[in-house]
């Protein structure tokens, strides 16, 4: 049955801080689009949205979510970027047996040591990003790597993933620098990377750190001196900020790109009408996951967390966002990922025409296999 005759979705994301552009207010638009496209109601029960700024603070978020689920009968919480927030929220959802669909976070720990039976990690995580980019670059001859790593848990895990992949593919990591988070001026790190003479300079960081590193790299002519830049976590918004001029030639892995096919273009146009910008993979993921969620309720006629989650796990996902998508027992939604390269100014027809997709990385290759999982829900 559908609890108190409404399906209530709480949208929690950073609306005003460093992660705003990933999900933020536009993420809510995506959510609204999903509900509208679904018909505004499920099983004749209407669908409501509540939303809040997570302030990137786990305790603010957790008091918000507690009230949502304990007093306001919220059935599902969507969005969530900062890993501290996602983890905190998932714990609360577990206590109250509600569902969470995390679309913004990168940390693979969310479905590993921190996995719960009450959340799904939908769009991407660091594992396939490192995996996809690194293996591809090594295969194309980038044997020796030099890493610029953001010096905190996220960076560290990204770095170790890269090391593994690079070595697995017969390359080697000749050096790594752990730079403070955040860093504005990368010149001295870039300089050291150049001095190392490695084929590839890998950026194991995110957001402003990455864009700053790339800007500086191009200023110091890293690519001219024959080194390749590999960004391990780069979003469309970042590339857009850098511009094709600066970012051209960078290889990256993404879960989705707006200009892949008719479906994606059609949806993105509608999104752009609403928001004025092109969607990131997170936006698309929020849309897709919400549709999947509602479908599951439609099918089971219940909005109970476990029922819905089970249903979602049993249904393969093939939609505008995900190909060969499947939600695993650990809550990880695995799907095809794509290796992309940033276009040159010549190739790029407009400010958002930024990627060319080099190849597809099949779902099963990309995400961390359950065999390596530390998740309590996985029995191995």
């Amino acid at each position, binding site marked *: 049955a559908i609890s108190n005759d409404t399906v209530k979705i709480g949208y929690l994301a950073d609306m*005003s*801080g*460093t*992660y*705003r*552009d990933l999900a*933020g207010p536009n993420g809510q638009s995506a959510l609204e689009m999903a509900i509208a496209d679904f018909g505004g109601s499920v099983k004749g029960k209407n669908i409501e949205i509540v939303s809040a700024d997570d302030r990137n603070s786990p305790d603010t978020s957790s008091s918000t979510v507690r009230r949502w689920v304990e007093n306001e009968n919220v059935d599902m919480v969507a969005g969530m970027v900062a890993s501290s927030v996602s983890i905190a929220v998932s714990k609360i959802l577990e206590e109250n047996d509600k569902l969470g669909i995390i679309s913004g976070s990168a940390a693979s720990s969310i479905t590993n040591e921190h996995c719960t039976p009450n959340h799904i990690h939908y769009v991407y995580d660091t594992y396939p990003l490192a995996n996809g980019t690194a293996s591809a670059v090594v295969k194309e001859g980038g044997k020796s790597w030099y890493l610029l790593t953001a*010096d905190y848990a996220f960076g560290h895990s990204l770095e170790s993933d890269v090391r593994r992949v690079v070595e697995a593919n017969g390359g080697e990591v000749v050096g790594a*620098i*752990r*730079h*403070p988070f*955040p*860093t*504005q*001026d990368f*010149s*001295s*790190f870039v*300089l*050291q990377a*150049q*001095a190392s003479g490695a084929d590839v300079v890998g950026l194991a960081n995110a*957001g*402003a750190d990455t*864009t*700053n590193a790339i*800007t*500086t790299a191009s*200023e*110091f*002519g890293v690519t001219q*001196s024959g080194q390749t830049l590999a960004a391990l976590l780069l*979003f469309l*918004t*970042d590339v*857009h*900020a*850098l*511009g094709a*001029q*600066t970012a051209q030639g960078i290889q990256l892995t993404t879960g989705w790109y707006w200009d892949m096919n008719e479906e994606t273009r059609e949806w993105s146009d509608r999104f752009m009408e609403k928001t004025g910008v092109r969607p990131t993979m997170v936006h698309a993921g929020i849309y897709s996951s919400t549709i999947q969620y509602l479908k599951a309720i439609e099918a089971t006629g219940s909005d109970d967390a476990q029922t819905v989650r089970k249903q979602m796990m049993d249904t393969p996902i093939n939609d505008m966002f995900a190909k060969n998508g499947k939600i695993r027992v650990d809550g990880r939604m695995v799907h095809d990922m794509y290796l992309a390269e940033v276009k040159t100014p010549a190739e790029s027809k407009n400010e958002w025409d930024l990627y060319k997709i080099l190849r597809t990385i099949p779902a099963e290759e990309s995400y961390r296999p359950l065999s390596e999982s530390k998740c309590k829900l996985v029995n191995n």
Partner: protein
Amino acid sequence: MSMIFGVPLAVLSGQLLIGIINGAFYALLSLGLAVIFGLLKIINFAHGAMYMLGAMVTVLMFNALGVNYWVALFMAPLLVGAFGVVIEYFLLRRIAGQDHIYSLLLTFGVALIIQGVLINWFGVSGLRYAMPDMFKGGINLGFMFMPYYRAWVIVAALLVCFGTWFVIEKTKLGAYLRAGTEDSQLMQGFGINVPLLISLTYGFGVALAAFAGVLAAPIYSVTPVMGSTTLIVVFAVVVIGGMGSIGGAIITGILMGVIEGLTKTFYPPASSAVIFLVMVLVLMFRPSGLFGKEA
């Protein structure tokens, strides 16, 4: 090739140069702070925001009106400076003579407002600003590749720093300013229009920050939050130099740039902590900073 602590000399000299470049940059930012604190006893927590504004204005003027870098180099500080005067006139003036802490809180509030509004307008992922053509590329110094633009940054920053220092420490105007901040009422009693002087000084201080912002636009990603992290570091620099010591701010700025640069080579993770370490150590032995006058 000779090595120092396992670091090739070439790399080291490169790092030193980079250090000096960033130092010049710090110098410029901390100079503005020092001027504002030293002369107005205002702890300007909006300084980071003003630096950010300088960069933002540069980009926006380019996108909207195609204003080029050189024009921006004058326009942006001018606009931000004017904005500063407005803030001084309508806000800071009302708490003149109150405890430092109030100016700190007020400007901190102002910074939150500016930053928050810009985030809502332009997002956080940053605006694009192309390197002006004449600065594209660079020269190979043998031990490193030196982008022309960085060279320009040193020259520009140091020139402005020296000019400011000279005016404040060596001219009558400077004397008025210094005295006016101690007892503005009495200065007025001598026939000097102190309120005007103060507004202009604050405007000038933040204009310096904006100038640094313009210099930053082509090399750092320009976002509404770019100032907030820089702020605290620059503060540390000013304190180490001795709050309000103009020359101190400049020298310390460069010094810290170098120290930070070396840390980035020998133990990168500490490179953002090192400045605070230095600060604690310095203040232990020189209670009012390296160049600060004993209270």
